[in-house]
């Protein structure tokens, strides 16, 4: 990309500093929600559910929770977080009067969204390990995967932000894109139960390959993963990252 330099790290540093200042208000979101879901769905609902094989329900959903909450983190950061910085705080306007370019700002924002994805994946991984559902050291591979998926979700989110006319526009992003993925990407139940056509369609949703691969890593049964899903993740990133740079440029350089 034409205008991206090492200086994009300055935007990342700014966001990191602010995050660790406000760290206390972020903690509940970090732990509480994934924990509640694991308790309610995994232990509560799970008591009534039996899966094929020896796997318990909580073992099934735990990796999906890692993938989904990493997605939420990157998405919140690069929708509401970025929009507030861009539109209300005018932080981008201030930064682009310094040697940073708009491309640096976009890259820094996406890098920070990616970091949030990684941090969340790490924390949730620790939480599910406390439930005793992590059975293999391969589970650590879920962290680099959270970097890749974070890059993808942050890029998609920032593209939407660069097009969003108002902060209310994000309601659509969550009700029509993020929430459906949460339920239909194999986080809470296997996709096998769906008709063939729905199964194939669900692979369009970017969370599907991420949930699938995270599950293969955390269970330690790497061979069960659909590894070609990595190509989807990298491919979508390769499309959405440059697109968000171009559209953001158009929005801010008038």
């Amino acid at each position, binding site marked *: 990309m034409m205008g991206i*330099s090492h200086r994009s790290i300055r935007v990342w540093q700014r966001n990191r*500093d602010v995050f660790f200042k406000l760290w206390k208000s972020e903690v509940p979101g970090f732990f509480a929600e994934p924990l509640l879901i694991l308790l309610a769905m995994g232990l509560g609902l799970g008591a009534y559910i039996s899966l094929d094989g020896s796997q318990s329900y909580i073992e099934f959903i735990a990796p999906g929770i890692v993938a989904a909450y990493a997605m939420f983190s990157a998405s919140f950061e690069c929708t509401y977080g970025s929009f507030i910085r861009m539109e209300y705080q005018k932080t981008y306007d201030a930064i682009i009067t*310094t*040697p940073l*370019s708009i491309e640096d700002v976009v890259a820094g924002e996406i890098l920070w969204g990616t970091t949030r994805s990684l941090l969340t994946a790490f924390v949730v991984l620790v939480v599910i390990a406390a439930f005793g559902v992590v059975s293999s050291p391969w589970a650590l591979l879920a962290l680099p995967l959270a970097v890749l998926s974070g890059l993808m979700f942050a890029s998609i989110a920032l593209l939407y932000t660069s097009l969003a006319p108002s902060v209310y526009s994000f309601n659509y992003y969550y009700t029509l894109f993020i929430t459906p993925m949460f339920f239909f990407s194999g986080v809470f139940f296997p996709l096998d139960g769906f008709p063939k056509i729905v199964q194939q369609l669900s692979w369009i949703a970017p969370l599907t390959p991420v949930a699938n691969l995270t599950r293969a890593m955390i269970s330690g049964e790497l061979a069960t993963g659909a590894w070609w899903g990595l190509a989807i993740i990298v491919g979508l990133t390769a499309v959405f990252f440059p697109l968000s740079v171009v559209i953001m440029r158009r929005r801010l350089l008038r």
Partner: protein
Amino acid sequence: MIKVRNAIKRFGAIEAVAGVDLDVADGECFGLLGPNGAGKTSLVRMIIGASPLTGGSIWVDGKDITMAAREIKSRLAVVPQEENLDPDLNVLENLTTFARYFDIPKADARRRALDLLELFELQGRQKAKVRELSGGMRRRLLIARSLINEPKLLILDEPTIGLDPQGKHLVWQRLLSMRQRGLTLLLCTQNMEEAGYLCDRLAIMNEGKIIDLGSPQELLGRHGGSQVLEARLRSDDRKSQVVLKLNQQGLEWQEVAGTFYMFEDGDQVLDDELRQEVAIVSQHVPTLEDVFLKLTGRSLRE
């Protein structure tokens, strides 16, 4: 320091900047005046590289803004009209974080930040959150932040808007001392007192063009005449006769909502006959504001 040649900026059918030529010398304080919508902000946004030119060229410090944006911006400072301090950071962090965008080393940044806080009388508020500051303090912090990279060129858009007289004079004193240290200033303002007090030269913009340019004294001499009379007609029925007479005498005048503004100069004075027709509301030595209103019209712009 700044060289603008035939700069054009169009937004769809609207031509915000319609071919501007401008030269600002090193160390000069240059003022850009104009009513709302005259194209000042669009011109400034092009100079700082935040808005691509539709046509023409701009050089800052000898470098083409389209070729060397990063290099130019590293020695440039901008104080926007709309305050954009970082509300997530405290006062000191606002400066040190800004310094980091310029790759200024940490210890250096901290030293410069503390110096600037002292210069703008904010030293006691280092740890304060931005929203805890008064409007005046925020504006001073905004100017302090802009100076963190030791710029060669400082561009200010309405730097004293919303300030009390004390705050305004503090800012003016600091800007003058910056200028004495060799900083070039480009000032967009609608405050004529400010323009006259600070600027070596002024350009008056209207409808996307520079309509006149010169030192405050030159502009006053060219357009101000010796005295400005503000008057109302004694009888509206006599308007056409009065207008005819004014034009015959070669007196420059403007009429807004029944009030006549007349510029006396040399032989062109209101004779006794005309004085019978009008009731003079006020008369004064011309100011920059009179020149401004004369050149850009007195009717409301937007």
